[in-house]
């Protein structure tokens, strides 16, 4: 099996984020591997480990050159190699463009399975995996809480966690899978893993080598304004009548 895992580098969740001329300021914040993508990396490694030798995990990321830092973390967890698509023309790319670049890269790589997180913590769109399935014409197995792969018969079965319940879904290779954060516990890179990752290949691809023309994004920001921070509220220590005070507050605000 050849497995690809799409990972994104995102600003640290705790970092204060700002917009500069309609785009997220990515320069002045700490950047990390999107934590929801760690579950996808972990699941890919588990699939490979469950089926012995001869299977590979390739990390694919689109982003600025410094995205290699996040990719290196995925490699230190145990992935084999990586492709980073980085190009000045991709600055501010929307999900349509991102999925096009990723899908074209995946299509040329001979992969059987692509794994994704369910959401990037910066954009929070939760659309790229579905877009990849649509573009590639592959089976979509998203929001998986468990994944079982049988390489011999090219079959995959997942449980999809939906708002309504659990769906068991099946498909044949090739497929796009996204995994939820309850699926596994991502491993910490070991010292050995970190050292080994330094020698692994990260292939840098400018857009021209991917074979996609940069197109303008089809959604555009008109304006962005910081909202006033929430004013500090009332805080009291319960001395036996905290519940009553809460009720008074509800009544005061006409909620009851």
């Amino acid at each position: 099996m050849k497995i690809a895992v799409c990972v994104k580098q995102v600003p640290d969740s705790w970092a204060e984020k700002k917009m500069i001329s309609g785009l997220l300021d990515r320069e002045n914040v700490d950047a990390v591997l999107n934590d929801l993508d760690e579950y996808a990396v972990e699941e890919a490694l588990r699939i490979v480990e469950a089926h012995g030798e001869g299977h590979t995990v390739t990390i694919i990321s689109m982003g600025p050159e410094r995205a290699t830092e996040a990719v290196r973390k995925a490699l230190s967890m145990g992935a084999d190699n990586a492709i980073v698509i980085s190009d000045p023309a991709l600055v501010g790319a929307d999900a349509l463009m991102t999925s096009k670049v990723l899908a074209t890269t995946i299509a040329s790589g001979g992969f059987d399975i692509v794994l994704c997180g369910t959401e990037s913590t910066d954009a929070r769109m939760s659309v790229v995996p579905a877009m990849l399935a649509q573009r590639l014409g592959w089976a979509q197995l998203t929001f998986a809480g468990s994944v079982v792969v049988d390489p011999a018969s090219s079959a995959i079965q997942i449980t999809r966690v939906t708002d309504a319940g659990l769906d068991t879904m099946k498909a044949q290779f090739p497929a796009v899978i996204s995994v939820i954060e309850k699926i596994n516990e991502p491993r910490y890179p070991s010292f050995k893993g970190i050292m080994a990752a330094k020698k692994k290949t990260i292939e840098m691809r400018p857009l021209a080598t991917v074979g996609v023309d940069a197109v303008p994004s089809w959604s555009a920001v008109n304006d962005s304004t910081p909202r006033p921070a929430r004013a500090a509220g009332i805080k009291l220590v319960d001395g036996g009548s905290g519940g009553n005070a809460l009720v008074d507050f509800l009544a005061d605000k006409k909620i009851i």
Partner: protein
Amino acid sequence: MSEVLILAEYSQGIVAKTTTELITGGARAGQVTVVVLSDVGGGEDLAKQITQGPATSVLVVESNDFAQYGVAAAAEAISNIVAERKPAALLIGSSAFGKEVAGRVAVATDSGIITDAVDVSAQLVATQLVFGGSTTVHSHVSHGTAIITVRPNSITADVNPSSPAMSKITFDASAQAKLAEVVSSEPFVKGGRPELTEANIVVSGGRGTNGDFVAVETFADVLGAAVGASRAATDAGWYPHALQVGQTGKTVSPQLYVACGISGAIQHRAGMQTSKMIIVVNKDPDAPIFEIADFGVVGDLFAVLPQASDGVRARKS
């Protein structure tokens, strides 16, 4: 006048309130056609429930492929309609399913997409609250049909009666849309409480409940509220994942959110900090959740909540 398509949302045969919110937003920009995707034979019962809000017509699309092939089949049916009618906009609720459908339709019809809007104007400018609600962004789609997913509970529904004209078509998914198949479904047992993302009030419990949600549920019930949970509570198996609030759970934006025994990790806040009002009950005065509370009680939830429940009951009687 241009046309705006709305995807009706329903669960267990009941059309959701979100549908009327989408109709209301969409009608600002054009004549609204409500698309109902349903099993064969089920569409008319759903369509009949669309009696509120400024909808012009209801288009029922019936196919058993929707249940069997999920997102891919739904997206294909809608893509066909969008390709044929070229509406100005397509509005879909911002659920996990809704966003996936929107994403596929955007690719299939070469249209721009905006997710998690909290408002839509007559010019189809979408308002989003980003970076944990700290920034307001206005944006628009510049190519194709404006595909916008809208968060439940954001647009005030126009509930004036209406009687949209109904038409019905059938749909067969292509082989491309049948690559992933649902082989079985296990629905969550739903209680009698309001839907989490639609509720005006949400009362949530976290690790501080220690697995005992009775105080939280009782308080929710006296307020007619939905019950939510932090990830610590869903991970422990105390509450179903479907009721998790946060980054990897639901995003809620009720009039009032009550966080009980929840510390306020950034991932939890990501799902609730745009609530209009926030009340906190937590015994740790330094819990970060107090930073965003309009009203906070430092205290034991097992003492504060029962007293508050009694107090609300007393005032109501």
